[in-house]
């Protein structure tokens, strides 16, 4: 039988730190993708544009998922 216990504030702070590290990595990846794609677009290279857009969208969805989890643990705090 599982017992659901809300996180304490210290636990939530640790979770937010971990989440922040992950979100920052994804955002830096997106920034790199954007600059590389812009460079390719200005150089006339079209082959990377849609794959890069798909990866960027995936990163956004991951970030939104993490944000939803953050709202969830905020709602269920003790």
């Amino acid at each position, binding site marked *: 039988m599982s017992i659901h216990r809300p996180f304490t504030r210290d636990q939530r702070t640790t979770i937010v730190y971990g989440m922040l590290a992950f979100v920052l990595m994804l955002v830096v990846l997106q920034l790199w993708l954007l600059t590389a794609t812009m460079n390719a677009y200005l150089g006339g290279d079209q082959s990377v544009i849609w794959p890069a*857009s798909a990866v960027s969208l995936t990163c956004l969805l991951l970030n939104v998922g993490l944000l939803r989890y953050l709202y969830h643990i905020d709602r269920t705090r003790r």
Partner: protein
Amino acid sequence: MSEDPRAPLDIRIDTPGREGLAGTTPASVYSPVRDDEQVTIAPDWRPMDEQPAWRTDFPIDWPQDHYVERRDFVKFMVLTSLAFTVGQFWIAVQNWFRRRRGEPEIRKIASLSTVPVGSAMMFSYPGEHDSCVLVRPMDRVLFAYGQKCTHLSCAVRPRVEEGVLQCPCHEGSFDLFSGRPIAGPPRRPLPLVRLQVRGDEIFAAGVEERTV
């Protein structure tokens, strides 16, 4: 008090059970609901009775403050992530419009007699605001490039005798024979304008954007 607890509450102001709504009750009655964990902790972690008076008067719950700061920063970063994704799709849409425009038409830009050996001339292609430069370093050698520097779009100046196209804004230089960057901040070559020579006439027949 023998009032029936199930009786409906009189919602008029200052009726029994609702005192204070007109300002007659001390504010302490309405103290905010506090989380068990929301205890004030000073930044030096010493107990509150050892803290200066001002800190007791204006307490800040630092662990809570840190938590809220990081949480809000995560939210801001997700917003930044959204902005990057929008930018990415904006590039894709721009690329779609560019493909729809297709190749520019072939157009006469000059005559060989108007471009002496060792000289250069400016022209616009494909649009009237797309300035380009035509150089003739040797008798049977002609090159044409877009004139916008690939760093920050300043106009490059041909220096035919030195074999370079120079950008005066940040001292960027491009090779005259290939259009590739050889010095300064630019990283991409200048767009190459394809040329056709028919008799004495020079035609522009397309623009080739390049990454390397």
